[in-house]
């Protein structure tokens, strides 16, 4: 299991009910992690509508998770 810190923005924050959380996950890539979280929080946004950043750098969805990573999921938002 890998321990990671997650940060959510916009609809994801609303659907998760928190702007961040700590999680132990069996997911190996960011893609697997998002799939796990979709099931857990009922995220409605498909993965291709999102950007993901790890440790303040945008990342590829196939990146492998490392212990202690801070992962941020960011949808584009529409309000003005």
């Amino acid at each position: 299991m890998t321990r990671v810190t997650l940060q959510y923005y916009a609809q994801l924050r609303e659907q998760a009910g928190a702007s961040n959380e700590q999680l132990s996950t069996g997911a190996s890539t960011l893609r697997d992690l998002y799939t796990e979280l979709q099931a857990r929080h009922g995220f409605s946004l498909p993965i291709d509508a999102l950007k993901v950043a790890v440790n303040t750098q945008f990342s590829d969805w196939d990146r492998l998770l490392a212990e202690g990573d801070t992962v941020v999921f960011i949808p584009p938002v529409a309000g003005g």
Partner: protein
Amino acid sequence: MNRFELTAAAVDLAAQREALKHPGSGGFCAFEGWVRNNNEGREVSGLEYEAYTELAIAEGERILAEAAERYGVLAASAVHRVGNLAIGDLAVWIGVSAPHRDEAFRACRYIIDEIKHRLPIWKKEHYLEGDHAWVACSHTERAHELEPPHVHGHHHHHAHPAHAGKFAPDYSRQQRLREVGEGGQRKLADARVLVIGAGGLGVPVISYLAGAGVGTLGIVDGDVLDASNLHRQVMYDARDVGQRKVDLAARRVAALNPTVEVVTYEQPLHAGDITDVFAQYDLVVECTDDLASRYLANDAAVLTSTPLVLASVYQYEGQLQVVTAQPGEPCLRCLWPEPPAPALAGSCVESGVLGPVPGVLGTMQAMEALKLLLGLPQPADHALQLVNLLDGTSQRLPIDAAAGCARHGGCVAVARRALERAHAVGELERHFVHLDAAIAAGYAIVDVREPAEISAAPLHVTSLQVPSGAISAYTLSQLERPVLLVCASGKRSAHAARLLREQGVDAWSLAGGVAALAAA
């Protein structure tokens, strides 16, 4: 011919009336305001008017032009006295000639109401007891606000005040900055900036750029002010509700800094005209609440090499990105190649927002715009900035251009393809103000909103109800006519119409959605 005059001399009424004669006029209406001998229970012996002349004349001319456009009058003029007046003297005269009496009456009423409300004229009342007081001339009743909004076509007008040259703005506080100075101020005066959206983000952008002395401000907004806007759009006030935001914004800029030239666009830009408009500006600031508009602006910025400052907000947080539109530097599509489907983005359904959130993000956009115009020091990399005002955090995430559009032929090629697609969507739309007219034209109406939205605002015509996420040629198989899809704003219906076209259905989308229909 419109004319607004301030004068210290008595008004020649016969000459004023004669000047408004026109062979096409069937009605003439005049109003005279006189000095009366009492006000709010006190006996008045006389009064004195003092005006901020340059601004009063510029604003007076604008009021006359608005009345002419609004009511279709042939000629209008107004004279306001300044200086000392005695009881019974004429203080203000307004004359309007129009083809018919109704326009003349209404325009005359509009002009006097607006003059009382907007002109920087102050009245000093002299009382019989020997004392005096300055009295604000503005009052709140404006009869035209009770009228339904007028339907306007797409046109541009210049709101440049004729007498702006006489006003001398004082930029000393910003010029004192070593990085600004006189050279920076000249750069601002020469700059042309387009602001798309005069709402929560646009209000601080317009205010700060006008205050800073940006020479030309283009303002795009198709909406009228709604009471629900006031908690975050702080340059408007309660009396402005129902008026077009571009007019209100132009008026606000004229009052703040009459040296700024304002160009207004009262319809949203579309794929057919956006690159032509962008080419006229040095910088664009995107301030709408519409993802499609933001992507369209991104594509036009990339194709015309016009720097673009993007921001958007969601409840308590916001995002900020500067697209420099230079080769090799990232754009919006480098981050998110396509906007999510409208139903997912929640763009047709309000998510709620606290007023200061767009205030903060719009202020940040104004800052980025000034940095670009002045050439102030910038970080070397390009980033998406995320701001969360609930927990007070801000993150700057550097964008790697090589991982974005570069994989799909580069930003320019991506933008060109996207703009061509947006053009095709425009050809899916039909404009109707009443759905009865659409039915008369042979369309079957399909309401693609969610059941809860439909029960909150039903259509009042016969329609088939199929939510946009569930629509297919099969669900419409009993309809043989062309179908007109309707949603709240026109976004989901356009998306659904495109899907149905691919399935061979003669499908169209109601442009602007229910929001564009006249009230039933």
